[in-house]
Structures are given as structure tokens and as C-alpha cells.
């Protein structure tokens, strides 16, 4: 403060320097945010009459839901069995199919046009929520677990393929060059210099993917792609709330269990 030439008797003030220095930008952003919130709230079609019935309805649903009812446990077991089967088969297919797509989408080993195709497949399959994909597959191949398997296979290809492609892009290039020097062809290089390097990662990823496929298989059923989700949807549709809550609680338990197991296995492997 010695540099300031104001008389030292004048009271000195201090304000916290604002987060955004430019006042125009600062107030502009605040106004934009406020206007957005008002606009968004105002433009959304809320059905207040229907919403106001919500509380009594919630009371009815929850009182109807407790205690959860496990009488029809056979239905529940069948649903879970199917979800589990969907998750396993989709993980297996997805993890295998993700390898070629990952190779296609790795910039260091795929030629340009192939690379673009590989990336596009991965981006597209990652953009869609599995439930949307499921509804299309249901439309194409009919209700049932087949649609679920196809959906989750695509979902796995997107997720595993992306991470695997990144892994391939980071491999130790020396091994590839060594193979090239030995006169190996493209496929031989893939099998001897690339895959061994990404294999450990792939095993961990499969465990992770099995866990997320199990979660997802519980929801694709809601649009008719098989598994416990369908059972849940039916229970809700028939106002069978005590059964629905029983399903919900067991879904939560299974998900927590599978998260724990998958975490434990991945820790063991690495």
C-alpha cells in the first residue's frame, strides 16, 4: 500500500475481488442463468391438478407397498434368472465383439477409413441409453430376452470398446516393431504383440461390465426386453405395490452384492 499516493489517513477499504473480473460478463452470466431458470420452469408443461393429487396417492402407494410381499417369489426368481442370463451372455458377446471394434478404433493400428468406422460405431452405441436401444430391438425381434441380449451386447461394445481402444493406443510400441522386424503379418502382430498387452485390462473390464450389465438388465425389461424389469413393470401396472416393493428391495440387494463381488474380483486380479 506504500505505492498508493492517497493520504494514509483516508479509510482504506477492501472488497473481495470478484470471481469473474469483467462486470459485464459477471452480471451477464447471472442474468442469463436467472432468465434460463425462469424460462425453463415456465415452459415446462406441469399438470398441477394431477400433481396436487400426488401426496394422497403416494400415501396409498406406500401403504399398499408395506410390508413388501414375497408370496409370488417364483415369478421373482424367474425374472432374476432371466436378468442374470441376459447379463452373462451379453457380457460374453460384448467383450469378444469389442475387441475387433477396439482394434478398428485405435488410431495407432487402424488405417484411417477403418478408424472412422470404428469410432463411429463406438460413439453411436455410447450415445444411446440402453433402454432406447432395447425398445428398438423389441420392435425388431419381438418381446423377450433376445432383445435384451442384443441391447446389452451393443452397450458393452460401446463401453469396453472405447476403453480398450484407448488402451491399445497406449501399448508399448517396441513389441510391435520387434514383431515387424521378425517379418510377422498384421494378424500375427495383433495376436503376439497387441493382445497380450491388453489382456489383463480386458479381464478387469469384463468383470466391471458384467456388473453394469446386471444393473442395466434390470431396466431394459421395462420396455419388454426380458428379465426382472418386466416383472417389476407388470407389478406396477397391476397396482400390485407390495410385490413391486419386494422386487425393488431385492434388486437393490442384488446390485449391492454384485458391486461388492465385482470390486473384490477386480482387486484380486490387479
Amino acid at each position, binding site marked *: 500500500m506504500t505505492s498508493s499516493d492517497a493520504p494514509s489517513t483516508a479509510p482504506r477499504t477492501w472488497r473481495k475481488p470478484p470471481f469473474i473480473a469483467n462486470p459485464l460478463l459477471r452480471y451477464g452470466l447471472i442474468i442469463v442463468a436467472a432468465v434460463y431458470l425462469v424460462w425453463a420452469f415456465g415452459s415446462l408443461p406441469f399438470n398441477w391438478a394431477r400433481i396436487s393429487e400426488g401426496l394422497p396417492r403416494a400415501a396409498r402407494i406406500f401403504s399398499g407397498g408395506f410390508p413388501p410381499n414375497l408370496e409370488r417369489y417364483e415369478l421373482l426368481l424367474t425374472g432374476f434368472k432371466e436378468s442374470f*442370463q441376459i447379463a452373462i451372455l451379453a457380457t460374453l458377446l460384448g467383450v469378444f465383439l469389442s475387441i475387433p471394434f477396439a482394434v478398428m478404433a485405435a488410431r495407432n493400428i487402424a488405417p484411417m477409413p477403418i478408424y472412422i468406422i470404428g469410432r463411429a460405431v463406438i460413439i453411436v452405441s455410447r450415445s444411446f441409453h440402453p433402454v432406447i436401444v432395447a425398445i428398438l430391438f423389441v420392435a425388431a*425381434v419381438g418381446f423377450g430376452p433376445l432383445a435384451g441380449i442384443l441391447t446389452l451386447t451393443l452397450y458393452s461394445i460401446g463401453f469396453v470398446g472405447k476403453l480398450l481402444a484407448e488402451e491399445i493406443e497406449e501399448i508399448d510400441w517396441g513389441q510391435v516393431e520387434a514383431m515387424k522386424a521378425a517379418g510377422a503379418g498384421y494378424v500375427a502382430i495383433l495376436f503376439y504383440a497387441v493382445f497380450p498387452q491388453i489382456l489383463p485390462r480386458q479381464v478387469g473390464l469384463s468383470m466391471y461390465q458384467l456388473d453394469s450389465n446386471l444393473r442395466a438388465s434390470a*431396466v431394459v425389461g421395462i420396455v419388454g426386453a426380458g428379465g426382472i424389469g418386466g416383472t417389476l413393470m407388470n407389478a406396477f401396472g397391476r397396482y400390485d405395490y407390495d410385490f413391486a416393493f419386494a422386487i425393488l428391495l431385492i434388486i437393490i440387494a442384488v446390485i449391492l452384492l454384485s458391486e461388492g463381488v465385482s470390486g473384490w474380483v477386480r482387486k484380486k486380479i490387479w
Partner: protein
Amino acid sequence: MVDHAQQLADRIWQRYDRKQRLIRYAVLLATLMVVVWAVRDIDIFWPWVWDAPNQISGLGARMWPPSAEGLNGIIAALIETVHIATLATFLTIFLALPVAYIAAQNTTPNRACLWLGRFILVSSRSVNTIIWALLFVAIFGPGVLAGILAIVFRSIGFIGKLMGEAIEEIDRRPVEAMEATGASKAKVIAYAIVPQVMPAFFAIVILRWDINIRESTVLGLVGAGGIGVILQGAIDTFAWPTVATIMIAIIVLVLIGEAVTSLLRSKVL
């Protein structure tokens, strides 16, 4: 002597390897058995499977070319989807932060609060958005409110868990210094905790907003608003070219969302 030790080491090594190999084979065998069981037991009509490629390409053919009809409605629905995601993310902040506070080991007022916080986070995270939506549609009827609440209830767990971890990782020395000045709890939070978790907070909220955009595209399939409603409508009426347009619109929306997120990240962090 040396030879003997060498042999011993070899033998131990061998045995260890054999055990590991055994475990490996056992795991492989178990996996194989589970897969065989799954394939044989699953409720699939196999002729349909061989027919599936035909069916899928048939559907693809019916979708092509995408129709520009109803584009205005689609764009309006997209905007509604963004609104749902944004408002829900915004509301979540106010609910998730207190939960994070009580669910963090080092800030929780007492054991009971800690377990309450953890219970809220776990239940929020293990119920999928679309199942939350199902519940809220049953309560509040079809519409955007059910959608917003579904996203909020799912996001509380996500933001709350990550923020709780961020709070647990803070440097506690400034906290101690603030306590030593005689500051009250609220002031200690405002000065020593909030600034430390701010960067994590922005990163987490931006990340969740991106996820919420994706999630809110499906809410409509159970009647909870957004682009999913017209997607369901188009599928129900077999308007496949419109379905294709909606799918393209969703991709565009998700890509825009990703671009906005990475822009925000580079600006704010």
C-alpha cells in the same frame, strides 16, 4: 548345497504355479458351465435368433430415409429434455450437499447422521433413473415433474457420494486453524471446507449434467416427459422414418452435451 536350494525354490515355484493354474482352469470351467446353462435355459425361441439379422435390417430399411416431418415437435421435445436435465441437476445440488456433509466421516455430526447419509446415498444410487421415474409417474402422474424428480433422486446418490469423498480428502490443517480463531462451525465450513471442495464440486456437477442429458432421453418411455414421449409415440404408430429422425436428434443432443461439458470444464477448472 546351492543345487539343493535351487531345487527347493524350483519346487515351491512349481507348486505355486500349479495352484494358480488350477484356479484358472476352475474359473474357466465354471464360466463355461454358467454360459452353457444360460444358453440352454434361457427362454429364447431359437429360430427367431437366426431370423434376427433379417428383422433388424428390415427395420433399418423401414427407417430409411429419416423424415423431416414433425421436426419442430422433435426440437421442442429436445429442449424440454435439456430443461429436465438442467433443472434436475440444479435442484440436486441443494439436496446432495447436505447429504454429502453428513455422509463424510470427518464432518458428520454423529454416527446416526453418518449412517442416515450413507443409507440415502446407497438407496439413491442403486435404483435406476427409469425405475425412479416409474415410481414418480405412479405418484404424480405422467409429465415432466416425475421426470425431474426421477433424475434428482438418482443424482443425489451420485453427487452426494463423490462430494462426500471430496470432503473426506480435504486438508484438515486449515480447519484446525479456523477452529483456533474461535470461528463457529458454519464459518469453519465456509472458510476452510468450501474453498477446498469447490473444484471437485464443479467437476462433479458438470459430469452429472452430461449423464443426466442422456438419462432424460429415456424418461418419456415411462411417461415422464422429454424426447422419449414422442419416440414412444412414433414407435407405437410405426412411424419408422420419424423414429430415425428422433434417433439422429438424440445423437446430436448427446454430442452437443459432450461439447458443452468439455467447454465448461476447460473454462471453469
